[in-house]
């Protein structure tokens, strides 16, 4: 998953901010996951610029799905 996300991160630079948290090691990430109700890993949260959550995907996700949700962000 990591190479796909890293590739997309470069591609969407300036359009979508990528924040990746290892919830086992990163307390801020774990708190954020709790705040968003993300109970499983991996979880992807697609958040619009206004802070509203556009989509949550739990579990494995294809690059096409990631692109679709990234393109849908406002």
């Amino acid at each position, binding site marked *: *998953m990591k190479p796909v*996300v890293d590739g997309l991160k470069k591609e*969407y630079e*300036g*359009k*979508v*901010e*990528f*924040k*990746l*948290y*290892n*919830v*086992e090691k990163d307390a801020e*990430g774990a708190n*954020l*996951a709790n*705040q*968003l*109700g*993300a*109970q*499983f*890993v*991996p*979880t*992807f*949260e*697609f*958040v*619009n*610029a*206004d*802070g*509203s*959550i*556009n*989509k*949550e995907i*739990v*579990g*494995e996700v*294809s690059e*096409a*799905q*990631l692109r*679709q*949700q*990234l393109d*849908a*962000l*406002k």
Partner: protein
Amino acid sequence: MHLLKRDQLRGLRIVGIAAALFAVVAMLGLAGCSSSLPAAGNVQNKAAKTLEDKGVRIIDVRTTSEFEAGHIPEAENVPLDQLSAAMGSWDKTEPILVYCATGSRSVEAMQILVSAGFTTVYNLQNGIVAWDGDVTSGPGGTVVGSLAPSASGLPVLYEFYTDW
């Protein structure tokens, strides 16, 4: 990559809810099968409402943003490009009603399902634009919270992961 529980107790609660929901959906499905249904294929609003009333599974094959703007209340959103992957775990004998905006993508969805061996597939012929039944908006339970706007002013993708 495996899906892991962050919090086992909360996770188990979710599994319990999912099992209960599955039981309800299964009962609805059986109720639908036990009564007579319209002939499979293209259907108009009236027949589609009969299917809706009987608890037939309804699949909206439009994009997520189209779905969120307004959909038939009981519908599940499976965008057309994700249908082939999603349908692998579905019961092929369970009746399914597909729809999209105007009935074009859903015809394709119906063909995909029928080719894959699904026995009873319905297509809402003119899509949701011609639908005169109930419509609901919103993301259908996928939103679990919200955050303050990002400092960068950009949308944000958060990924929560572990090294496991």
